[in-house]
């Protein structure tokens, strides 16, 4: 049997929520002396088990604060799980917040190389993909302008263009398809679907059930840090719509 793209075993993530943020020494000592330094423990994720086969496209549904973004960050390697293990096989392209690695004073062109390097790619490799990235982002006329002068849509476009150009094996999408205008949104959806043919594995977080149905073949529902349902995309989406409607009543 081939290795799964992502395998999560008994993974839990604990956050210490300070009642107030203590970030200087004076406050720390005052609180230490006055015994006010206590943390509220909060399990953002609890005993998550998930196996994603290569080529699967999994939609992650859930209400705000259910732990969706935390889960993506753990899979992307940004957060280290408190308990359990996460194993991934393949090149991950995280699109958690597009343009997060940009330097505002740097031009679009320079940022392409910087962002590429942030994802672990060589200058030479990005050079080969450069034209494709610029063309896809539709920013040819602005490529030598510092990114601080870009609109948020332009930044997102550039971010998406870079992250999708590198032929990822695992694509992590956190509500990124809701940025940009309708035209670009269609274009990026199309681009993602074109990656399916190459057998890319997708994790997709969205509140939009239609988008999930469009992109995913499987889905899970997260609630309060636990997976409460998993299975076929259609079934799970129906269940999620039911949950949403129940909440309204």
């Amino acid at each position: 049997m081939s290795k799964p793209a992502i395998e999560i075993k008994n993974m839990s993530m604990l956050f210490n929520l300070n009642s107030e943020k203590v970030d200087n020494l004076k406050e720390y000592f005052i609180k230490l002396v006055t015994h006010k330094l206590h943390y509220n423990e909060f399990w953002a994720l609890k005993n998550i088990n998930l196996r994603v086969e290569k080529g699967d496209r999994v939609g992650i549904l859930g209400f705000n604060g259910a732990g969706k973004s935390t889960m993506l960050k753990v899979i992307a390697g940004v957060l280290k799980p408190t308990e359990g293990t996460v194993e991934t096989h393949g090149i991950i392209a995280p699109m958690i917040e597009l343009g997060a690695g940009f330097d505002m004073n740097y031009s679009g062109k320079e940022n392409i190389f910087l962002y590429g390097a942030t994802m672990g790619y060589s200058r030479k490799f990005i050079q080969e993909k450069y034209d494709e990235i610029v063309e896809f982002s539709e920013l040819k006329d602005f490529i030598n302008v510092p990114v601080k002068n870009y609109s948020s849509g332009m930044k997102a476009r550039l971010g998406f263009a870079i992250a999708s150009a590198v032929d990822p094996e695992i694509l992590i999408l956190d509500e990124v398809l809701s940025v940009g205008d309708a035209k670009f949104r269609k274009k990026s959806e199309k681009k993602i679907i074109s990656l399916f043919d190459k057998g890319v594995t997708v994790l997709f977080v969205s509140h939009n059930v239609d988008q999930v149905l469009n992109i995913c073949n499987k889905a899970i529902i997260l609630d309060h840090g636990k997976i409460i349902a998993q299975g076929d995309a259609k079934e799970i989406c129906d269940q999620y719509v039911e949950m949403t409607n129940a909440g309204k009543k």
Partner: protein
Amino acid sequence: MKKYLKNFYKYRYLLYEIVRKNIKLQYRDSALGIVWTFLQPLMTTLVLVFIFGNVFGKSNSGVVNYPIYLLCGRLLYEFYSQSTKRAMRSVRNSASVIKKVYVPKYIYPLANVSSTFVTFCISLLVLVCFIAFYVIRGTVNPEYAEMMPHITPYMLLVFVPLIILFLLSIGVGLILSTLDVFFKDIDYLYEVFCLLLFYMTPIVYRIDSLKIDSELFAYVMLANPMYSITEMFRCCVLYGKMFNIHHLEYSLGFAAVMLIIGVIAFYKKQDKFILHI
């Protein structure tokens, strides 16, 4: 261990890109651009030569060539303080990236020390110019012959103190960047420490011109690794002789200890960074 090396190898481009970015952006909006890397030390050295050589007097007594003596100390000190300060803030300044994408976090302090090292190496050109100036003047006019720096093969050893200083800065930079994530106060404390270091290191004065009564104080002065490194550097480029091997042992040992503490502290705490930045 192999895993870490492999990971570093993969992200070596990121190191390169950040070094490149820091250097490019540092002087981007100034009219003279990269020229400032040697114009700035040149001008500040002239100020210091004027103040400590003339106004306060006596600081230059017994020094063969006071401008070069001062320039050596200042360049090294400036590199150390700049690189460690930048490294200290690097992790917090990169919060937006670290929170969204997986990157080996030590790249940031490492890249900041490295980029400062590159500009420092460019600024060494000032020193070359100074030496050339005094050598030519001494040759043309024998009156100034005694101020001539000695051109000797020992100049080739100049990379020894520089490498030690580089390692020391990385070690201290790693420690500071770890602390800075949890306590921002370090920023201000370290500024004060650097000021203290400037006066505790024989940059504008000679250590044997000091009249130190307290034995403890004398001991502290000698224990300063910046003193050993600066002395080694001056031996190579100004005095034209072999440096004291004890200076080499001490500063190398000190740098190694700092580096080990830095790596361990950073490694143990790095998974918690994201919760605090």
